[in-house]
C-alpha cells in the first residue's frame, strides 16, 4: 500500500541494466509490474518490506 502510494505520486524516471525488455520505466509501469506479480514487481515489494523493517527497528 505504502509503495503504491509512493509510486502513484512519483515523477521519477527509472532505468535498468537488463538485456531483455524495456530499459526505461515510469512509476506507473512499475505499479503495473507489481499488479502483475512479475519478478520486477516482486523485487520492488521485497525492497519495500526491507525498508519498512528498518523503519520499525528505528522506532
Amino acid at each position, binding site marked *: 500500500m505504502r*509503495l503504491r502510494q*509512493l509510486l502513484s505520486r*512519483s*515523477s*521519477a*524516471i*527509472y*532505468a*535498468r*541494466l*537488463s*538485456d*531483455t525488455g524495456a*530499459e*526505461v520505466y515510469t*512509476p506507473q509501469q512499475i505499479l503495473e509490474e507489481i499488479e502483475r506479480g512479475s*519478478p*520486477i514487481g516482486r*523485487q*520492488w515489494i*521485497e*525492497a*519495500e518490506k*526491507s*525498508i519498512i523493517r528498518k523503519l520499525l527497528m528505528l522506532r
Partner: protein
Amino acid sequence: MPRMNTAVLILPDQHYLGYGSCVMRRIADQFRGRLNIIELNGWDAVPDKINAAIRQNDPAFVFGVGHGNVNIYTVECRTPYMTVCSDTARMMAGRVIHLNSCLTAQQLGRDLIAKGATTYYGNYEEFWLIIGCNWRIYPPCSNKLVTTVFDAEYTVEKSLFSGRTTGQAQQDRLKAYDDEINYWTSGPGANQPCAADAVRVLEIDKRIAVMYGSDSARITAAAPSMLALLAGLAAAIGLGIGIAVGSTAPTG
C-alpha cells in the same frame, strides 16, 4: 599472472549506460597517477577492442557496465561480449572482475569463478538507476539523483584502487549503499523531489550486490612499509660499509 596495479574499464555509453560510465570515468581520473588504467569508452567498448586491451595489458582488474542477463554480459549498443562457458569467460581467469549488469550473478558470475577468476562482484537481480525526476530526463553525472546508485556500487573500485582487499571492498560497497540511503532519508537530499524513489532504488541495488570468490585478494601491489624501507636502507648501508672495509683491509 595478471599485472597488479593495472585495470581495464569497459565504459559503453549507449542505452543509458553513460550514467554509470560517467561516474566510473571520474573515479578513474582520481587514481590514474597511481594505477595503469585503460578506459574503453563508447565505441571502443566492443568485443575485439576489449579482448585486445586485456591481452595487451593483462590486468589484475576488469570492470564492465552493460546490459545483462543470467548468462550474458553485453557492451556498447548491447553487443554480446561474455557468456557462460565462453572463451571470453576463460580470459578472466586470475583476475578480479566487477560486472555492473543485471542478473549476471545468477550464472555468469559463478561461471567466471569456476573458470578461475579470483573474485567476482555483480548484481543478482535487476539493477536499477534513476535517470530523471519531475518527468524530465537528466544528463549523466548532472546531479546526485542520477549518480547515487553508482556512487555506492563503484565504491568497489575506490576501495580496490586504494589497496583494500576484495572482502573489504565488498564491505565498503554495502556501507556506501547505507550512506547513500541516509543521504536521501536524513541527509541533504531528504527534502528533494524523488528522494523516496532514490531510497527504493538504492535498497533494491544493495540487496542484489553480491561478491563471489576470494575475499583476501588485492589488485594493487603492496607498497613497502616505512619499517621495511628503513630495514632495507640499514642493510644497504651495512653492506656498503662491509665492502668498504673489505676493500681497504690489509691482506696477507
